[in-house]
């Protein structure tokens, strides 16, 4: 029983969309239809590719605002077209690359120095803030540089001390206001990251936050509960910029 529309059932057939009864019926049609047999292999290949490709997944709700804010802030920058974040990214970090005792000494020194506002004005961006972040126990540190570019603020963050979190959890870097308290957070996210499998975190994040208003950098470990608000535990914190 090959009804008039049977040829066009081939698409639903290879995608596995047909009901069992329809499938049996189409199997019978296929057995006697040279045209469908000829096309079967090609459509199966297309269906395999379709199934292998990633599905659309809704991103976290706050990503839209963060993305538009990053672009908006870039748009009001001095030279949007000329800004080149690539050149900034290639800048060498001063201390950790040296390794060993030198790095520890540099980290300790930087900890006492806290944050320095302002600084070098390079051709491709203004170094707005350099910060050392430390855990409360002092056993973990991180370094961050905030560069004001035509495209907003770019934050280079690095740490070798953050443990790899259980699956689903992630670290989040925040710009926090002076009155930020765990019970009453007042902070803006600069993005999320994971250390690599060697426990090294090297990330470049983009944010549209003015460090003059949010002078403290905080890293929290977030539980991955889908809640864009701060819901994790702070693990690193900088002294506020002066």
């Amino acid at each position, binding site marked *: 029983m090959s009804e008039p529309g049977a040829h066009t059932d081939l698409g*639903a057939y290879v995608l596995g969309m047909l009901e069992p009864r329809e499938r049996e019926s189409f199997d019978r049609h296929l057995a006697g239809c040279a045209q469908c047999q000829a096309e079967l292999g090609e459509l199966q290949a297309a269906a395999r590719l379709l199934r292998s490709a990633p*599905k659309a997944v809704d991103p976290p709700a706050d990503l839209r605002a963060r993305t538009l804010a990053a672009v908006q802030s870039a748009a009001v920058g001095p030279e949007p077209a000329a800004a080149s974040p690539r050149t900034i990214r290639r800048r060498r970090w001063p201390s950790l690359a040296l390794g060993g005792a030198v790095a520890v000494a540099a980290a300790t020194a930087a900890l006492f120095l806290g944050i320095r506002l302002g600084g070098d004005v390079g051709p491709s961006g203004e170094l707005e803030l350099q910060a050392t972040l430390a855990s409360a126990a002092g056993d973990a540190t991180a370094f961050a540089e905030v560069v004001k570019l035509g495209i907003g603020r770019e934050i280079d963050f690095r740490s070798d001390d953050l443990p790899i979190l259980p699956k689903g959890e992630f670290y989040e870097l925040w710009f926090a206001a002076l009155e930020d308290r765990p019970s009453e957070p007042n902070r803006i996210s600069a993005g*999320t990251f994971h250390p690599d499998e060697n426990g090294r975190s090297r990330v470049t994040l983009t944010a549209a936050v003015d460090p003059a208003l949010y002078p403290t950098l905080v890293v929290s470990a977030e539980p991955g509960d889908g809640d864009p608000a701060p819901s994790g535990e702070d693990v690193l914190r900088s002294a506020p910029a002066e």
Partner: protein
Amino acid sequence: MTGARKDDERETVLIERVGKGEVDEPLGALYDMYSARLYGLGIRLLGDRGLAEELVQETFLRLWRSAPRFDRELGSGTTFVFTIARRVAIDLRRRRSSRPHAVLVDERDLEPAHAIAASDGEIELAFGVREALDTLSDEQRTVLVLHYDHDLTQSEIADRLEIPLGTVKSRTYHGLRGLRRALERKTADV
């Protein structure tokens, strides 16, 4: 040709508006059209929610920066967005798959050759299928996407779109054929 895409003209106009300096409205509309697809690509290809977010955010930043150079004569809006996103994905993938051999090596000093070629291939393929879907007519693409992104059965698709079951089947068939042709063209282009 299986029918022009209405969205294509819409995307082209939105990108042109961004190119002329508008941000919020046209970029927000583009974000709504593309973010879930890009985020899905990011999660699968980069294996990490943080990196998937970076993929989305960085794609729109680069889109904003590149929009003044967009030329509708050279390619569709969809191709423009996916070309940018593909580059971002490859950059992020390289960053993730860098394997420093010593603590003294900064990953920024590693050559791009450290990236795994097969991963770039996967990225190309995944983006290729997504782009090929976008060459279909709106009617055909919608049916395939409802099945593939949302796991709807043919009856559920018929209900959702308020069209007869036979129409769902014929759009599925012609959509799949169109997808195969588009993927063939892509392979031929390479």
